[in-house]
């Protein structure tokens, strides 16, 4: 049933894929699976109007993994819910696989939704049904033959690695297993698109990684177009080829993940990028009062993030030579985004305030991200 519907452009996608730079960009972006055009949505609540979407336009190519990141309340869920019209925009167009969803009748929309899978933060499984029955549910609704359902469900459970749990009830599963069931159920009707609304936000880092791996595998195997909503930049780093950053109902920045990571323009994007490289241990260490007094003598610690292709530039030497500053390196690491390196350095700079300022603006001109090290903030939990 799962014939590999791969087109050449996607054949080399792995968990962390080399972005196929060699391919001309137009081949990858030629077929748009999802086109959102000038979406607006305002909620009228007792506390006043909330503009959840403000003129949002997005093009999502077939077979890609597209990420949308933003803080709580940015309008991410509202956006992803317009893709299957769970949320009807006040104005704008939603075109999925060539069809304008706003033009469809109720019945046609239901048919269309069967081809758009969706998974959620809280899994939303049927508690009264077994794993098997949950996955079979959409197929039973579509009046598929019993034998066909049995085969398909068995195959899906194999795909998500849960064959041994067919008879279990959701309450007997771990969070990661529940999400796997949800994924199997979302794929039951062989959709072309999978929408993921904070699908890993309720999971621990290991489980998150395994779910992301599964999504990457499905993307490759089924040529599935995946839209991922998240507030974790690490999710974007791990599997998204393209990312859109949302703030206050608007898409403020979008593009190729590596580019967003290496050359973020908006402040909000920079903050998201920093979260990925942020080493909480180091930050905590460098901001503890006693330690600061003892080791830093009032000097400030900074967190520098720079692109791999700039890594061979002698920035630190420049700081020392050109600006006559004392720079000590506390900690360094490298992260890979789309298989390309991005470096991260924690340094302590000693010198006059004016010169430090100059040095920092020099670094920023060179597209190095500079953040004063501040106390780690506990990551906000998304409801």
């Amino acid at each position: 049933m799962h014939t590999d519907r791969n087109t050449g452009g996607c054949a080399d996608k792995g968990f962390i894929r080399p972005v196929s730079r060699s391919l001309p960009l137009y081949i990858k972006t030629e077929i748009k699976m999802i086109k959102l055009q000038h979406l607006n949505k305002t909620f009228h609540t007792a506390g006043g109007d909330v503009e959840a979407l403000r003129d949002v336009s997005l093009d999502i190519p077939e077979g890609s993994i597209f990420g949308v990141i933003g803080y709580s309340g940015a309008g991410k869920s509202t956006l992803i819910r317009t893709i299957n019209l769970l949320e009807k925009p006040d104005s704008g167009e939603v075109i999925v696989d060539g069809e304008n969803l706003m033009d469809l009748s109720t019945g046609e929309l239901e048919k269309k939704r069967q081809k758009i899978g969706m998974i959620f933060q809280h899994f939303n499984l049927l508690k009264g049904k077994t794993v098997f029955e949950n996955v079979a549910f959409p197929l039973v609704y579509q009046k598929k033959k019993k034998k066909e359902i049995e085969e398909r469900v068995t195959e899906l459970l194999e795909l998500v690695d849960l064959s041994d749990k067919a008879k279990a009830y959701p309450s007997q599963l771990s969070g990661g297993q529940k999400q796997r069931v949800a994924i199997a159920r979302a794929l039951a009707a062989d959709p072309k698109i999978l929408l993921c609304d904070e699908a890993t936000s309720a999971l621990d880092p290991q489980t998150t990684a395994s779910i992301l791996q599964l999504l990457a595998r499905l993307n490759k195997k089924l040529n599935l177009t995946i839209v991922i909503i998240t507030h974790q930049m690490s999710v974007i780093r791990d599997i998204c080829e393209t990312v859109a950053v949302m703030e206050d109902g608007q898409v403020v920045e979008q593009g190729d993940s590596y580019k967003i990571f290496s050359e973020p323009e908006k402040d909000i994007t920079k903050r998201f990028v920093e979260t990925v490289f942020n080493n909480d241990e180091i930050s905590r260490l460098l901001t503890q009062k006693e330690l600061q007094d003892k080791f830093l003598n009032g000097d400030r610690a900074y967190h520098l993030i720079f692109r791999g292709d700039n890594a061979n530039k002698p920035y630190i030497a420049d700081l020392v030579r050109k600006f006559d500053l004392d720079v000590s390196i506390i900690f360094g690491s490298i992260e890979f985004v789309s298989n390309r390196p991005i470096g991260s350095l924690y340094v302590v700079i000693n010198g006059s305030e004016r010169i430090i300022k100059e040095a920092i603006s020099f670094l920023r001109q060179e597209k190095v991200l500079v953040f004063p090290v501040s106390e780690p903030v506990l990551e906000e939990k998304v409801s």
Partner: protein
Amino acid sequence: MKVFFSEFLNKYFPNIVELQNYLYSSVRETLVMIVITGAIGLTLGLFLGIVLVVSAKGGLYESLRFHNVLEKIVNIVRSIPFVILIALLVTFTRFLVGTSIGVKGAIVPMVIGIIPLASRLTEQALSEMDKGVMEAAKAMGISKPYIIFHVLIPESLPGLVRALVTCFISLIGLTAMAGSVGGGGVGSFAIRYGYNRYMTDVTIVCVFFLLILVSIVQGIGNRVVNKVTH
């Protein structure tokens, strides 16, 4: 043993022994009333409860004006004390079943009396349903009626069964009350002999019977709840 038992009965429950045929028929009447009003009243209550939930804000068939009117009616009927409801419904009952007394006459006000409670409890049980699960079903492209019958109701089953048990127990109370105003059944038996003629043993046996009935319903209910909770 047998001799001892009948001596015991004769000594402590003389009136019951004498009126045993009356007791049997009262018990039968009570059971009949409960079964019939239960079947009709709870079905209607369940239906109204579903209508209330799906028409509420955020429901599958949201219609606030309709919901509010329906809710008002349910609340009004619910606030009328049952004895007064019987009096209020006399004409209607006569018109519907030809008499306002006896088992037949009791059924109509009992059905009307139980509907508001049943629909309220149903509404409560159904509104505990996780909205996300309904949404997931919608996202799968499943039609609204199918969602009601294959997601909303089955997923709320434990709560619904609990609601039904509460309704049945209230119904047992209603039959006793209906009996006291000429409705037949154990209630009227207890009033006529136990209360009016000071036959304490009759009252005790009636209470005992009702207690057993309540515990049986509760026991079955708990079992079913356990069965349908996963």
